[in-house]
């Protein structure tokens, strides 16, 4: 069997194991919906003005929670799960088998991306059903899908990269969340950042990938102009994550 088929085969096992931990799966799927309900309840059914466009807050939050869901499924979940696998010796055992290590990790990345897509579909359907939010369609859908695939792949790569500085599995959740939560706030995922936000916040949004990704998905939802720049910057971060992972990723427990 060649490595490509082995990788796909491995996705099946990753998927099986994933759904057999229903608590973990349930909360991964519940989180974005829960936040969607909380944010829309808190901030009402008004409008937000972004780059001169009036967008209904519910559509804004459906789009924002879709980005949040993708980042959770790829960056957060993968970073934490792979650190646990590293520290419990699962990765080392794979390293002693004929399965190439990259094939094993690729299977995990493919699975995380599939989960991200599933989460986006659920969040969108939920938003459409309960908040009458706009959904991507037509040529916006094509762009939306491109951003979604590039974004989830890039955040997976960053999830693998972040395992490198994590010293042990117990610290994984804390470090992963500490690296992503501030960015989610400063990138307008939880609270809309208007056009008059402080310069340093806008600067952070321009440098890091979260705002570019969220803006890209949002463009798909609200049908605004699409910036290839957003895709490019997210992809550059993804490649950087991949390079860091290739250089510093550890297959053995760090004790």
């Amino acid at each position: 069997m060649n490595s490509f088929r082995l990788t796909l085969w491995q996705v099946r096992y990753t998927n099986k194991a994933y759904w057999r931990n229903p608590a973990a799966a349930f909360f991964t799927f519940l989180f974005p919906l829960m936040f969607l309900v909380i944010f829309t309840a808190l901030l009402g059914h008004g409008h937000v003005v972004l780059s001169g466009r009036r967008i209904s807050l519910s559509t804004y939050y459906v789009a924002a929670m879709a980005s949040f869901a993708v980042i959770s499924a790829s960056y957060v979940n993968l970073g934490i799960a792979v650190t646990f696998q590293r520290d419990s010796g699962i990765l080392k055992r794979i390293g002693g088998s004929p399965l190439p290590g990259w094939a094993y990790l690729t299977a995990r990345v493919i699975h995380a991306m599939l989960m991200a897509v599933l989460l986006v579909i659920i969040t969108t359907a939920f938003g459409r059903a309960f908040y009458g939010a706009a959904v991507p369609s037509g040529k916006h859908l094509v762009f939306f899908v491109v951003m979604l695939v590039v974004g989830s792949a890039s955040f997976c790569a960053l999830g693998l990269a972040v395992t490198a500085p994590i010293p042990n599995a117990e610290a994984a959740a804390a470090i992963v969340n500490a690296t992503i939560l501030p960015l989610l706030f400063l990138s307008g995922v939880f609270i809309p950042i208007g056009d008059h936000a402080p310069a340093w916040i806008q600067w952070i949004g321009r440098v890091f990938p979260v705002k570019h990704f969220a803006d890209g998905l949002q463009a798909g939802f609200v049908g605004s102009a699409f910036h290839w720049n957003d895709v490019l910057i997210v992809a550059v971060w993804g490649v950087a994550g991949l390079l860091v992972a290739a250089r510093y990723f550890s297959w053995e427990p760090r004790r």
Partner: protein
Amino acid sequence: MVDEAETGATPRNDDEYAVVVRGLTKSYGRVKAVGGVDFHIARGEVFALLGPNGAGKTTAVEILEGFRQRDGGEVSVLGYDPGSPQSKLRNLLGIVLQSTAVDPYLTVEEMIGMFAHFFPHPRPVGEVIELVGLSTERTTRVVKLSGGQQRRLDVAIALAGDPELLFLDEPTTGFDPSARRGAWEVVRNLAALGKTVLLTTHYMDEAQYLANRVAVIASGRIVAEGTPATLGGRDHARPRVRFRLPAGILPPADLVAETDAEGFSSFTTEDLTRGLHTLTNWALDNAVVIEGLEIIRPTLEDIYLQLTGGATARDPDLPVDPMAGGSG
């Protein structure tokens, strides 16, 4: 899986030996973990590497498994150099690491099946499950297995690819006695299948029961090598005859026996038959009743403790030449 061209190195023609190690060295920073180790393992042999914690066993074994790069020396595993990564060698190895986990939510059968898939010629999953005695746990999730059962699953996973050479790093550490017996039977089954086994352990009875040959490693060096019966000159060590005589009666002068505080007398002898004959003849002639007569030979553990300096020697008559029973 991977093309021939990608694997590079050509296997050396070692038909007789599964493993050949010459002058192996490895340091971590300034600490010398392995300081010039030589040994070889014949095909089909169960070879045990004994040593206290931190002696360098795991480092040496992990170099053979391809997890560590050596600093110096020659290593051949099934004709390949484990230092240059190659999937062809990986196809032939079964590895049971000291502490590893598997995905807790998959079943025994799924886990073995998953690993079996990585290999070109896997052993049927059902057969492997039977071999390690997990037939009734076949569809049990890993998270529900006992410690002993999980270790057996480790061995089963290592056997999934039907390897020629099996590495067992402390396979029974933390087992209760009956689980250890069970694990030993598994290893015996493997030996019966003609597999070569490299076992590391710090249990003497385990080495004695399982291994054809034993090497003792201490402070990164092999200090003795031989069969469990001959290690460290165990077979040449003089047996000690120990007994108790009724109060007031002294042992015959020609046996040069010493008497300890508990009232037991003992003597060592080159010629056990003659020594016993002298003692019993004297007892019969003088109508003396000998109590608690026993013949004591140094156990593998005595030899081990002496070789590794782990304790004060219990018997001053043990030979001290460390290579006395070794093949060098």
